[in-house]
Structure formats: structure tokens, C-alpha cells
């Protein structure tokens, strides 16, 4: 079997070398970027208080110490939004699926295309045993490489969101860590199944790209809406939770520890609809004139008014395009909450998957991906036995 694995990797040497180089390079790059961020040694308090720019004279007094804090935070944000950082994050996002497709597509399809399948299948007797050898070669290549990439991505995530434990936080959780392995295996299994059915490499690649894009783009929303909703619990000590981490906006949304699933609204302990909450505010709120403010103060914030999108920020599957709406109305009037007992105001309770459930959630979703991989693999094993070798 070892000999078969070695020969399979040798047969597909370009793909083997390319995937290895890219994954190793990406791992090293992620660790370097994390090191660069960490070496700035920016206090968490500076990041949390950073206003993203310099104050005009009408703002509250800023001491020299605060200005220095701002400078450090600005350096952090600049580095965070730098080109190399964006590139690394983009590659980390796509690497597992692309690696899986690249390794999986030629596994069976190329043998059929090049006419070597009849010989291999004649020698092997059992086509499934033959296929198993090739699949194991792919798994032995992908699993360790993707684990390295995933762990490096976790380190980078910790550097990008200081104060958040990447192993107790759902910030970009499916784009790092152990899930990288399972995404790669799922893409690998789906692609070699397509290759077995179609018998041609390029069509397998084309179809796999389409299917994988669709699955990846819909996974987050689908899991949140249909599956994780059943397990979500009331978020406790919300303010404290939010202060535990540095709130940043990147692929996957705010860098909060918990995974937001849905919310419920209550007035005086009674669950109410959004329309009822709207009605309460419209009935009870007081509007006062407020000066118009500029919305975004962070130079690196991609949601600045008029900023063209950068792929790193907007192409994350599932991330919606969000026009900037933080400015006040044209008439310069803003409305504030009413002066009544806060306990009688509408309360919004968020239902979340807590960050402390990270490993259980990872195990669950990885398990689903593994099931999908096994299903695709089963199709391939059934089909290889039935199809013609050309």
C-alpha cells in the first residue's frame, strides 16, 4: 500500500508539489504575519479606544499618551489592512477547497483520459482496492498540509483579534483550524467522485468549482438558520462578552467570541415582535437635533463611504454587501431613547452559540463535512466498479 501511495503521488507530481509548496508557503506566511502583528505589542486598551484618526479641536481633550496609543493602534490597523495581510487571508480562505479540487480531479479522471485505466484495472482485479490506494494517497497528502495551514490560520486569527482566544471564538471559525482539513477532504472527495463519473479532468474541475463555491457560500447561513438554531442559548452578560474581545470587522463579521444566531425582543418580560418594538419606540422616543458626523474614522475600514471593495473584505462567502448607513439623516435630526426606567424599555436578547462551545461546534460541523466526504467517496467506489475504463 505504501508503494501504491508513493507511486500515486509520483504520478501526480505536479499537483503534489504545487499543493505542498502553496500550503507550506501559506503556513509560513500566516505565521510571519501573526508575528509581525504581535511584535507591535499594542495594548488591548489602545485598540478598544482607537477612534481611527486624529481629533479635531472640537473633540474631547486627547493627551500625549492617548495620541501615542492612537499611533500604535493605527500601526496595528494599517498592518491589518495591508496588501500582504489581505493576500494571506484570501489564500487561507480558498486554499482548502482549491487544494482538494486540484488533488482530487486527476485521481481517476486522468487515468481514464490517458488510457491507463484498463491496464491498472486489469492488473488490480479489484477496482475498488485500486481506488482506495489512490484515495489514501490524496488523504495522506492533504490532511497534514491542511492541518498545518489551519493551525497557522488560528495563530493569525489570535493576532488579528487580540484578546480573543481563537479556540473559544467563532470569529471566522470555518476558515481556520481543524475545519480546513475537513473542507479540503470534502472538496477532494466530491471532485474525485465527479472525476470517476465524468471520466474527464477538466469537466470534473469545472463542476467541482461550481459545486464547492455554492456549498461554501451557503454553508454558514444554512448551518446557522437550520441546524445551530436548535442549539443556541441565551447570551449571558452581553456587555462583558463584547468587552472581552477587540471588535473588528473582517471576513465573517465582527470578532466577537460568541456566534450570533438569532434574537428575541421583550418588553416587561413579554416576548414581542419587531413591529411591536418599533411601535414602542415611535410612541415613546424623543428626537433632538444632532450634528452630522462622519461615519467611518478608520482609514483601513473598507466600509468607508465610497470606498471600493477589496476582495478580502467583501468576497467572503455569505458576507453581504453593506452600504454605509452610519450617517444621520439629511434633516440633521436624530432620535434618542426615552427618559424612562430602563427596565421597562424593550430588551433584546441574543441567542448565541457561546464561544466556550467552540470544540463541540467544530466537531459537529466537521463531522457533517466528513459525512459528506464519505457519501461522495461511496458514490465513487460504487461507480468505479460499474463504469467503462475509457
Amino acid at each position, binding site marked *: 500500500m505504501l508503494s501504491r501511495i508513493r507511486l500515486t503521488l509520483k504520478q501526480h507530481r*505536479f499537483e503534489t508539489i*504545487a499543493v505542498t509548496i502553496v500550503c507550506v508557503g501559506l503556513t509560513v506566511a500566516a505565521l510571519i504575519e501573526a508575528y509581525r502583528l504581535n511584535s507591535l505589542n499594542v495594548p488591548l486598551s489602545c485598540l478598544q479606544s482607537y477612534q481611527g484618526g*486624529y*481629533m*479635531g*479641536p472640537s473633540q474631547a*481633550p486627547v*493627551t500625549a499618551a492617548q495620541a501615542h496609543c492612537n*499611533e500604535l493602534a493605527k500601526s496595528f490597523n494599517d498592518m491589518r489592512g495591508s*496588501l500582504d495581510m489581505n*493576500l494571506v487571508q*484570501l*489564500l487561507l480562505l480558498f486554499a482548502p477547497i482549491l487544494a482538494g479540487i*486540484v488533488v482530487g480531479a*486527476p485521481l481517476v479522471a*486522468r487515468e481514464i*483520459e490517458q488510457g491507463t485505466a484498463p491496464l491498472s484495472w486489469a492488473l488490480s482485479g479489484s477496482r475498488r482496492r485500486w481506488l482506495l490506494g489512490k484515495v489514501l494517497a490524496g488523504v495522506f497528502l492533504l490532511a497534514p498540509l491542511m492541518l498545518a495551514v489551519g493551525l497557522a490560520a488560528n495563530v493569525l486569527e489570535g493576532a488579528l483579534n487580540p484578546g480573543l482566544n481563537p479556540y473559544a471564538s467563532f470569529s471566522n471559525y470555518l476558515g481556520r483550524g481543524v475545519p480546513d482539513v475537513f473542507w479540503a477532504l470534502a472538496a477532494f472527495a466530491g471532485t474525485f467522485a465527479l472525476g470517476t463519473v465524468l471520466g474527464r479532468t*477538466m*469537466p470534473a*474541475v*469545472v*463542476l467541482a468549482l461550481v459545486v464547492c463555491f455554492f456549498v461554501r457560500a*451557503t454553508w454558514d*447561513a444554512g448551518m446557522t438558520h437550520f441546524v445551530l438554531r436548535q442549539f443556541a442559548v441565551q447570551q449571558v452578560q452581553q456587555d462583558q462578552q463584547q468587552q472581552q474581545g477587540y471588535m473588528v470587522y473582517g471576513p465573517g463579521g465582527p470578532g466577537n467570541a460568541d456566534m450570533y444566531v438569532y*434574537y428575541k425582543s421583550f418588553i416587561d418580560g413579554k416576548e414581542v415582535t*419587531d*413591529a411591536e418594538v*418599533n411601535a*414602542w*419606540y*415611535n410612541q415613546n422616543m424623543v*428626537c433632538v437635533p*444632532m450634528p452630522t458626523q*462622519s461615519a467611518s*474614522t478608520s*482609514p483601513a475600514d473598507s466600509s*468607508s*463611504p*465610497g*470606498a*471600493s*471593495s*477589496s476582495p478580502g473584505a*467583501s*468576497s467572503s*462567502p*455569505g*458576507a*453581504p*454587501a*453593506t*452600504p*454605509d*448607513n452610519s450617517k*444621520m*439623516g439629511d434633516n440633521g435630526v*436624530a432620535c434618542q*431613547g426615552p427618559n424612562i426606567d430602563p427596565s421597562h424599555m*424593550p430588551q*433584546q436578547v441574543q441567542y448565541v452559540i457561546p464561544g466556550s462551545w467552540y470544540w463541540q461546534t467544530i466537531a459537529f460541523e466537521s463531522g457533517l463535512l466528513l459525512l459528506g466526504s464519505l457519501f461522495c467517496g461511496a458514490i465513487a467506489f460504487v461507480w468505479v466498479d460499474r463504469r467503462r475504463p475509457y
Partner: protein
Amino acid sequence: MLDRVRLTYKQQRFETVAVAVVCLGAAAWALLASWHLNSVGVPASCLVDGGVPYWNGPANSSWIPVACQLPSQRFTDALTSLDVGLASSLGDVLPFFVGIAMGAPLVARELEQGTAPLSWALAGARWKWLAGRILAALLLIVPLLLIAGLAADVLRGAQEPGIDPHASFDYFTSRGVFFVLWGVAALMGTVALGTLFGRTMPVVIVALIVCLFARATWERLMDGNLLHGMAVLEMPGVQSPGELLVYQSDVLYLDGKVYTGTDCWVSNGVPGCQYGPGDQPGPSSIGPQLAWYVITGDHYWRVVALESAVMLAGSAALGAFALFWVGRRRPY
């Protein structure tokens, strides 16, 4: 020539059908998503800077006028729905998918399958043979991507109802004519790689990496080089919807001078800065502000034309390399 075009599609029938289905499907999806957004019917009076105010929950959105709250909420729900989100993100990947899918087998598969010696023997001039195949691919992908790109423009218009998508730089390189430009660039690059490697999978791998890199760096390269000189200083507090932020500096004095890299702070309400030689503020200065250099939306077509020219020049260079190299390489 028509025969050659037809036979090229027949040779690559899977890729041809896949590209057509995906492009037309993406266009239809974008139009459906646009309809989904437009069907909310947000009144024009509710628009803020051309966009619909983002509904951030009743507690945080109480500044929105009462009559606009329900439309805002519905529009936000539609905007963050899966179909709109997916349709939006297609713009970043579809043109590359099309270019690579059509370009990779164009030369590489002929070399792999051993039919190149026959084709090249019959054709005589290899560059003519390749030019015919490239033309066939272009005749397919250009109209398809244009349709998908225009549908993406319509979607952008629906996402920001008060802004003309052809006078706005919001996500402008992920829609419109850029669909065609990216697709053509990906096609030419992949064909060039195909003539180099002569094998389909290696071409796909390298093309994917190169396209990812190009897409991620394009805007910064353009902003930092081509568009830098076109940007104009925007007064603080004045913003026009859909403008393109090219770069920003840290300090601005309203007497028209801009200072960069200057450390400023405010202490007890009095601004202070570490000035460089000759950088002292004038008596009418209002103090340090953020300074943005922008290109306003009315320059949309000029910017698009400029970036298109650069991209097309790059594509032409890649195509020229492919036509040159195909004449030099061995047919197997």
C-alpha cells in the same frame, strides 16, 4: 473561420455548456435578487446618500424617520438574504472561472491528447491555428460575461437605489464591463500558461493562484499608480455617494495645505502638532482633519476606460506571448 469556431466549441463542449449555463444563471440570479430588493419599494424620501438606511435593530435605528422604518427593515432583510449575498459574491469569482475553464484546455488538452501534431501539421501556421481558437473562446465569453456584468450592475443599482451604478465606484471592479475584462485577462493568461506547460491541470493550478493574486492586488496597484494623479482633495465633511477613495493623508489645513506624517494631538481643547520646517498653520486654519483624496462618481467612465485599457493591454501581451510560444514549442 465559422467552421473552426464551431468545431472548437464542439471539442470543448462541456466547458462551453458549463460557461454558458453559469453565466446566464448568474445573470438571472442577479436580476432575481434585484427584483427581490426592488420589490420592497423603499420611497425615495427615505434614501440617505442614495442608499437605504441599514436597519440595525429598533434600539439602534430610532433615528430613521417613522415612515421609513418598516421599508428599511424589509430592505435590510432582503439585502442580507442568502440570494442577494450569493449574487453579490459571484462577481469576484465568475469571470475567472469562465476564463480559466475555457482557456485551460484550448492548447494544453491538444498537447496532452496528442492531437496537436496533426492540427499543427494541417494548419501550417501555428499562430493562426491558436488565434482561431482564441477567437472562438472570445466570441463565447465576451457576450456572456457582458450579460452577467450588466446584471451585476442592475443588482448594484438595486442595492443602492438612489445611486446610478455607472456614476458610482462601489464595487466597480466586480461588476459591469469588468466582468468581461477579468474574463478576457484570465483567458489569455491561461492560454499562455497552456502553451508553456502543455498540461491541463498544472495550467489550472497556476492560473487559479495567479488570478487570485491579480484580483487581490489590482485595486491597490491602480489606486497607488494610475489613479493617484487623478484624485482630488475632498473637503472635510463633504462626501459624495459612490466616490472612490484613492488614498488619504492624516492632516489637512483648510488653507489648502496638506501635511502628512505629522503627529497631532489635542490637549485641553487646544490642538498641537509636531510641525515640520515650513509647515506652520495659517491664522485661518481650523486645525488638523482627515484628508481624503477621491475621484467622484462622475468620472466613472473615465476611470473604467483607463483601467480597461491597462487590463486589455495586459491581456494582449499575454495573448501575444501565447501566439509566439506556440510556434516554438514541441507539439507533445
